[in-house]
């Protein structure tokens, strides 16, 4: 009893000292709480569906940012990993009858392999060459998918996949918790030693190589990690929609991922996640104007980029937080002095 009270007190101190200090952390904590507590408020199936799809695409967008925002290898072919994940899990589930919690990790492994296949030719390429080469891969795969309709179901895709669970609520929680866990893992990766090296590779690869770091290994690692998470997203998508079709490999899917990630802010993991949670419901809720839907979406993206060219989240973050010039810790913008070193914030 006494020990429990101690731990609760410690938790409260941590919450007060670390989380409540910065508005961005408060937002993240609220986000976690709202997502986890959503079914207590409303169990509207449409709302649940929108949130589940949003979280799947959030994993996808975050994995793109891990590769392209951090390592600087702009990848226009992210739909490849998504599609490979979706098709692999579909094939494994239908033909070999492996249950979803087994086939999704295997699909992620297949996507990692795809990441290697894409990554190795791209080692020598830079900039636009890299972007266009990566764009080529999903198109090649889509051509192969159409050309072998008995294996892959051609235009109709593979249907009849099992759900992850039969109850709506349990399904929702599985997807949400998976998304939160994976995104936290991605955030931890970017915050670690490997993440710093990724960021450095983007800034100046020559300097990183001159420091004695094997950039080839790290670039391939970025491709594989990105492929892993995107493959999981693809597998989850296939099992949620219960169908794996060629629409997962389309160019427009690749472009959508790029739009979400750049809109939200490159080289942050929370940026793409936020932008997916902003843009995807926007796209869904403009459904009552079916002709103008995509146009409104495109106009919103265009106008936002005019005024916030670095992305939505960095702009908002710079408005509400300031960095201390002495100790580089972030503070709320309304403070006059830094909370750690008490230097003056200008």
């Amino acid at each position, binding site marked *: 009893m006494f020990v429990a009270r101690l731990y609760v007190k410690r938790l409260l101190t941590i919450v007060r000292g670390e989380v409540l200090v910065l508005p961005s952390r408060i937002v993240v904590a609220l986000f976690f709480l709202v997502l986890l507590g959503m079914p207590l408020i409303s169990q509207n199936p449409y709302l649940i569906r929108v949130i589940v799809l949003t979280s799947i695409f959030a994993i996808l967008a975050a994995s793109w940012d891990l590769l392209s925002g951090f390592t600087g290898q702009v990848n226009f072919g992210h739909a490849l990993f998504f599609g490979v994940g979706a098709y692999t899990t579909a094939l494994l589930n239908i033909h070999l009858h492996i249950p979803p919690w087994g086939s999704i990790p295997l699909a992620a492994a297949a996507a990692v392999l795809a990441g290697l296949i894409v990554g190795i030719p791209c080692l020598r390429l830079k900039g636009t060459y890299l972007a266009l080469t990566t764009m080529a891969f999903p198109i*090649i795969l889509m*051509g192969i998918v159409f050309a072998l309709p008995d294996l892959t179901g051609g235009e109709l895709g593979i249907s009849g996949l099992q759900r992850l669970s039969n109850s709506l609520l349990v399904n929702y929680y599985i997807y949400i918790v998976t998304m939160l866990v994976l995104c936290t893992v991605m955030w931890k990766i970017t915050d670690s030693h490997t993440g710093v090296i990724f960021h450095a590779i983007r800034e100046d690869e020559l300097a990183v190589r001159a420091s004695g770091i094997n950039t080839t290994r790290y670039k391939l690692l970025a491709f594989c990690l990105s492929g892993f998470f995107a493959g999981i997203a693809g597998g989850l998508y296939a099992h949620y929609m219960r169908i794996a079709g060629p629409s997962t490999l389309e160019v427009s899917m690749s472009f959508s991922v790029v739009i979400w990630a750049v809109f939200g802010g490159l080289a942050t993991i929370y940026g793409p996640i936020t932008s997916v949670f902003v843009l995807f419901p926007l796209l869904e809720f403009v459904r009552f104007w079916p002709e*103008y839907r995509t146009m409104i979406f495109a106009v919103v993206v265009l106008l936002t980029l005019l005024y916030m060219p670095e992305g939505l989240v960095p702009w908002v973050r710079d408005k509400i937080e300031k960095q201390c010039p002495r100790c580089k810790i972030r503070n709320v913008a309304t403070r006059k002095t830094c909370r750690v070193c008490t230097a003056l914030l200008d």
Partner: protein
Amino acid sequence: MDIIITGLITGSMLALLAISFSLIFGVARIVNIAHTAFYMVASYCIYSLSAKGGLNPVAGMLIAVGGVTILGLLAYRFLIDPIREHEAAVLIATIALAMIFQEGVMLIYTGDYRTVSPLIEGFFVVAGVKVFYQQVLTFAVVLVILALLWLLLMKTKLGLAVRSTAEDREVANLMGMNESRLAMITMGLAVALAGFTGAVIAPLAVLSPFMWMEPLIMMMAVVVLGGLGSIKGSFVAAYILGFTEALVVFLIPKGAFLKGSVALSIMILVLLLRPEGLFGISFEEER
């Protein structure tokens, strides 16, 4: 024979698109995803002017090209120029622009397929294969335009300015060339070329609001294969990929699905051996 005709037509169209794309990228460092969207808008303009307005096709073509050029210049001035420093944002802005064009065209013309009647009716038979006069006309016109472009770039002062800005932006600026005005002029030139391609291909192709995606992929493959910023490279690569596409479609059984795949695989293979493309200039690390 069919292969040669189709290859030549596709190659010429890709050459025009790729050279104009290469121009914008070389001078202004903008990857203009909306390039083929301009091509689509021009085709639709030709459609309205000739089918609904009943105008003479040649005059219709000139008006369409002019209109598309103005559209492109406006889009550049207000949407792309302010964010030119952030390359990722420019990319997304052009994607969004292309989507807006697609949706706009779909709203005005609905999603049905349209056709434009050819300029010269009739055909003649060569070696057992029908060759339409329109195809020959298209090919001849494209060659003429390419020759004019070559003259412009090589022999005039403006062409010299464009070429030098493509090689080194900062030094061209130091030499007294107004770099942002040149970017605007090049953008106008390139969009005019894209519009011209649309106007010329309109009688041969089927118009639909989604027709901009497929040439986009092939065009980017051509540009990458030929080397970014190299006109000669784009020209050669366009015909290589045009003929490859024609060969794949006619010779391999499931060819129609695989033509994109084969062309892109060739591009990847060439890039493995030569990372700058066939004639590309390897850029020094721009700091």
